[in-house]
């Protein structure tokens, strides 16, 4: 049996993001990509399950960036057994979560996994729709905000986090789709040598898919965040600084 993990690349916000002249996209030339952080946790949780039960881990992704290979090889180096890449005529575009789920569903059905694990959310899916949408398309049970899993006969026991730190334990019939909030352990380090070994020795399976017909809302304009307020560094002797603080507080009627 297998565990499918969905990996998605998102812009690396450590690098400065710029908006393309079109106004509806990021400047792709200056963007670099990282794997969505929650997806890293989904992969780690799958690897932990594998260590406990011996399932195969298959990582699946839609290559919208042209750079997905790196992410997939890294996953193979971490201990995944197979990597599947969906390719099509959508490189350089953003897929909506719904379109993404639509592309993934038939491929995942064919893999017939016991479990599908994906990040609970992503920078371009803050509502966390991927797991529920996939669940609906596949007609499999699903849940999100998962912080721990355990596989048993025909079921998966999951722990999810509710508000205020309240924990909820659930049991879902497998196959099921899980949105992972945090793996039980920090996503493991993969040495560069292992990634290079995976690049030499493993292959990524490719699946051609049709470009989906978008039914999602159309993007009209992207905007950079505007500076809301400015911090002021107070310098000088302690008494100068105290004086200045008082002044500011008075000016705002707080003192």
């Amino acid at each position, binding site marked *: 049996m297998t565990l499918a993990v969905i990996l998605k690349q998102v812009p*690396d916000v*450590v*690098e*400065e993001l710029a908006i393309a002249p079109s106004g509806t996209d990021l400047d792709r030339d200056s963007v670099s990509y*990282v794997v969505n952080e929650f997806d890293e946790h989904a992969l780690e949780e799958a690897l932990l399950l594998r260590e406990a039960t011996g399932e195969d881990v298959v990582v699946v992704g839609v290559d919208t960036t042209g750079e997905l290979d790196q992410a997939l090889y890294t996953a193979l180096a*971490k*201990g995944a057994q197979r990597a599947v890449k969906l390719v099509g005529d959508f490189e350089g575009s953003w897929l909506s979560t719904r379109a993404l789920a639509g592309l993934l569903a038939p491929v995942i059905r064919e893999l017939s996994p016991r479990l599908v694990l994906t990040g609970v959310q992503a920078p371009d899916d803050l509502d966390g729709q991927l797991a529920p949408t996939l669940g609906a398309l596949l007609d499999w049970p699903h849940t999100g905000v998962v912080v721990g899993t355990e596989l048993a006969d025909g079921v998966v026991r999951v722990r999810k986090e509710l508000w205020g730190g309240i924990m909820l334990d659930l049991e879902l019939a497998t196959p099921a789709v899980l949105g992972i909030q945090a793996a039980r352990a*920090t996503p*493991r*380090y*993969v*040495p*560069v*040598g*292992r*990634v*290079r070994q995976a690049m030499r020795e493993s292959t990524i399976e490719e699946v051609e898919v049709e470009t989906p017909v978008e039914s999602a809302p159309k993007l009209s304009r992207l905007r950079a965040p505007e500076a809301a307020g400015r911090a002021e560094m107070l310098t000088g002797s302690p008494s100068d600084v105290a004086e200045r603080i008082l002044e500011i507080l008075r000016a705002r009627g707080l003192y």
Partner: protein
Amino acid sequence: MLTTPERIAFLLLALASLLLTLRGVRLIVRAIGRGYGRPSWGVFLRRVIPVSLDILLQRPIFRTRPLVSLLHAGVFFAFVFYGLVNVLDLLEGFNGYSTLHASGVASAYNLVADLLSVAALLGMLGLLLRRFGLRPFRFNRAVFLLPSVRFGISRDSAIVGGFILLHVGSRWAGQAVRIAESGRPDWSQPTASLLAALLGGLDAATLAVASHVTWWLALGLILAFLPYFPYSKHIHLFMAPLNLILREEKPLGRLEPPVGNGQVGAARLEELRWYQILDAYACIMCNRCQDVCPAHGTGRALSPAALEINKRYYLNRNLNSFAGGTASPPLLETATSRAAVWSCTTCGACVRICPVGNRPMLDLIDLRRHLVFAGDEIDPNLQTALESLSRYGNSFGKSARQRARWAKDLPFPVKDARKEPVEYLWFVGDFASFDPRMQENTKTVAQLFHQAGLDFGILYEDEWNSGNDVRRVGEEGLFELLVEHNLAALGKARFRAIVTTDPHSYNALRNEYSALGLDVPVYHYTELLAELLERGQLQPSKRLQAVATYHDPCYLGRYNRITAAPRRVIRALGLELREMPRHGENTYCCGAGGGQIWMDSGGQERPSEQRIREAIALGEDVRYFVVACPKDMAMYSDAVKTTGYEHRLTVIDVARLVAWATGLIELEREAAPVSQS
């Protein structure tokens, strides 16, 4: 003269003893042979004479502990001379040849043998007194020891010490007996003659028996001891010289890449290199490495001595099976612990101090390589740093494009060495580029170079971390990645030489990159500053009248022996330099090396705090704690605060002092006790 039965007995015992000994030695040779690689005969031929001279002069031993080394020298010289003594004594036993009451060369021989016997006895008594009385073996409680080691060290020391005392003592007493038998003192053997005077009252029959007994105790004892010899630490007297002679002359700062064929690092004894197994046999358990180890000195689980001794005791107990090719258990079960492996700062102090040429640090790095490659859990902060390094080329998690942001604040542009030729390519390094506390220093260095009219440039975002510490953390693949990136970047630039701020980058570029294809001179900025001051390109307008001490960075002072240049700078500014006890090549680690700067050391007192106390002990008037390494600046700025000496001692980069003297910058609080002239 021996009786005929005695002669036959001796010959039979000698045969048995030699056969047993030979078997032990052969097993040891096979055990060492299980390690990777083979010694080079070229190295042997080149080094055998100079290194043997070094050993005859006892130079590796006198590096520290002068009094103990003197005791050792007594035993050592006696041992060397006893090679001849034992042969002549054998002759005496078998055909009656004797130098007693002889004249000429033989009397000189008598005198030397007599005096060295006493030197060996006194030396050995002194060493035993030290080991069992004054300074017994102590390890931190966290140090991993094989069960057989704790008792074994004392037992082995007692057996070896006892053997030497009995062997030399019996020979000495035997001479006294023979002198007493002759009825008159032999003044070429003064001490034995004194002893003989005490034996004067004994009758001839008793003396005859004593003569036989002492002969057997002197020479027969060798036969009894020989089979134990390969299992004792005494074998160091062959293995230590071999270890020193066969050591290739390459810088300590250049690590060997992993052995290849898919193996990264070493998990087991047989996965080490041959010389790392030889190390265990060369070790004499003097514990000097542990004394200088900053990890052990701050209560952590690492003792380089324990590592070698554990290896040795494992081998002693399992020599047959190990030499026969059986896989040994993991080193983490027989030699050391994970905690120890991860507390090494790779400061190199253990390697430098070891009188027998051991390099326990290399084992720890090989273990790290193995653990990292095998996916063993690593310190979370280290993991974050490594992930950032592989993605952005720096450990700060910052975009590479921000690397040269500090240069924007300068009143002049810094040349882009990728776009125009420069004389000096300045390899700035991560800490100097990204750490906000260090950027002021970096700007100061740039201003000094500019003021001196130096033609220099930087690589901007194409400079990545040099990988020095990445390699020492055991992440060899990431090291290769960083090297590939930097070599490509350096290949795009045109320059005559490289100058670095960070001693760690200096070491990597100078020693590691040069083995991978980089062929340019590399300088540390202190070398350049010294030269610019001496050539008059930098002219101090003020003199600093204060007392300063200087901390040698491990990778500058110990690894690369750059100790004079920073001191030339300090003195050129008019400062009075007062040395800490541990300085130059004997410097003490700040605790940041070998990747420790990315790890959590776990709450004990830090080496940097001990170091600040060492500086404080130099006197009330020491004002500056001068550093020449961005990591030192970070470590000691913290340590001076945590120890509460912030208002007494100012941690300052040597460049800041130069810049103040040349009028480039103003020092605020730091300048208080300094008068201008």
